[in-house]
């Protein structure tokens, strides 16, 4: 087995060559077309782009927070309790795992659009039609929608490994339910929450399909890049913005991986 190294290098070659030719080289090109350090500095001082970056970051952070709370509650509940229909519930909650963003955008329209279910219900209840699919709230709803399945899977996998004796001990020592939650459950879930949260954040940063379907005037970074590229044909600026978006996203993932101690890679 000592002399396998030659063969191993041969096996690594195709993937390495493909990756270098179609990812590393194009990304380097993207960086250069973006126009160097000065162009990047000018993006970071332009109010439109800075505000777009802030909106995108805020939306991604809000999505991550909401998804973690929702999936945390549902995931721990499903892992802890056995009841009739549990498997069906898990199946429903993880079905949209790989729905593309465009389709999720359409589902948001079906729920909260002009002919949507929420509109129908609110008309029946209050006489006024509530329509929020085409606003920031609709985009937020879409992002939470496609983040929930993956996060629930990660939470459930980790909740399985939590030691229930720890919580029993806390309870017998007189801890209230919220104290058990704060001191036992959340710390135990922390690696899962960090890794799932990082993936959720990264996806929300770069998601384009949902915003595209909702066709709103929300200036999340992905939409700004798309508009600059296709409508304004401002390729250098689109390249620079994409590079910034890619770098910020990758940095967040790397930071979360460091904090979680290498578990983020396992969740993607």
């Amino acid at each position, binding site marked *: *087995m000592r002399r*396998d190294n030659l063969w191993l290098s041969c*096996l*690594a070659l*195709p*993937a390495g060559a*493909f*990756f270098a030719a*179609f*990812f*590393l*080289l*194009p*990304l380097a*090109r*993207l960086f250069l*077309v973006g126009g160097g350090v000065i162009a990047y500095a000018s993006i970071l001082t332009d109010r439109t782009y800075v505000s777009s970056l802030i909106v995108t970051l805020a939306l991604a952070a809000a999505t991550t927070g909401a998804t973690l709370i*929702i999936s945390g*509650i*549902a995931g721990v*509940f*499903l892992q802890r*309790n056995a009841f009739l229909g549990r498997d069906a*519930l898990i*199946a*429903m*909650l*993880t*079905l*949209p*795992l*790989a*729905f*593309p963003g*465009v*389709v999720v955008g*359409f*589902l*948001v329209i*079906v729920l909260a659009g002009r*002919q949507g*279910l929420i509109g129908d219900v609110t008309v029946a209840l209050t006489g006024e039609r509530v329509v929020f699919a085409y606003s920031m709230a609709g985009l937020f709803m879409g992002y939470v929608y496609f983040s929930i399945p993956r996060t629930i899977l990660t939470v459930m996998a980790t909740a399985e490994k939590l030691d229930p004796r720890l919580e029993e001990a806390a309870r017998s020592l007189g801890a209230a339910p919220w104290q058990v939650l704060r001191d036992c459950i959340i710390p135990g879930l922390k690696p899962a929450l960090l890794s799932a949260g990082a993936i959720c954040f*990264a996806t929300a940063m*770069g998601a*384009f*399909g949902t915003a*595209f*379907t909702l066709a709103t005037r929300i200036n999340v970074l*992905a939409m700004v*890049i798309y508009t600059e*590229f296709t409508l304004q044909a401002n390729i250098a600026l*689109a390249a620079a913005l*994409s590079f910034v*978006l*890619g770098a910020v*996203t*990758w940095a967040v993932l790397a930071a979360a991986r460091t904090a979680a101690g290498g578990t983020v*890679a*396992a969740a*993607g």
Partner: protein
Amino acid sequence: VRRKGVLFFAQLAFTLLVSAFLIVPVILSMLAGLTVNYLVGIGSGLTLRWVAEVWGGYRDTIFRSILIALACLACTLLLGVPAAYVLARCRAALARVLEELLVMPVAVPGLATALALILTYGAYGGFRTSFLFILVGHVLFTLPFMVRSVLAVMLAIDLRTLEEGAASLGANFHQRLWHVVLPNCRAGVLAGSLMVVTLSVGEFNMTWLLHTPLTKTLPVGLGDAYASLRLEIASAYTLLFFVLIVPLLLAMQRLARPRAPAGRQGE
């Protein structure tokens, strides 16, 4: 005990609400694709007219998506499985760097990757206008999932002991690879394959920039339909997409379900 009961039902209600949030719009959109007039409601009757219209006008996008997904699967198997094996064998620092690099196409938004590909290879007309251009993007995006899925199984089965056993019996590199390593990580290859096909069939972010009018895929067609067509047709198109992707997702769920008897991995 009573207190726990209240907590249980509160959590159950919450979980039911979340699953309703995920499933109700799927059912509504499926119904919309089969309803004569969605504004009037289901009372206007059910019809296959919209589905037929979509099938007539857009079925080429469905076949193209399936073709690209299968080609993508072949590429990720050829590139990804060997790469995973190399990463499993070399636990050196360099291998860690490679692993990190390989995950990058997932971290970097598809829009950025697509733009980079167009800037670098967009001038090669024949390549740019063929489906191969989209295929390259899909392979980039799905390769990390194949590598990770196979690598996870390889790291879990104590490859080293198995291979040393085979080597001590005189098996050379190829014999070990074909008769010991690959049969033992079938589960990982299968899980990775399902993931790759599902992601490729649904990929939009990159494909929207990479496609040309003659190389539209299903999600690209959906994007078009949502922007320009009436709700019933868009829903019927979505319905066809669900027919394609839901079986894949259900198969993935079955595969991911932890098997009850422990120690029967790799069967």
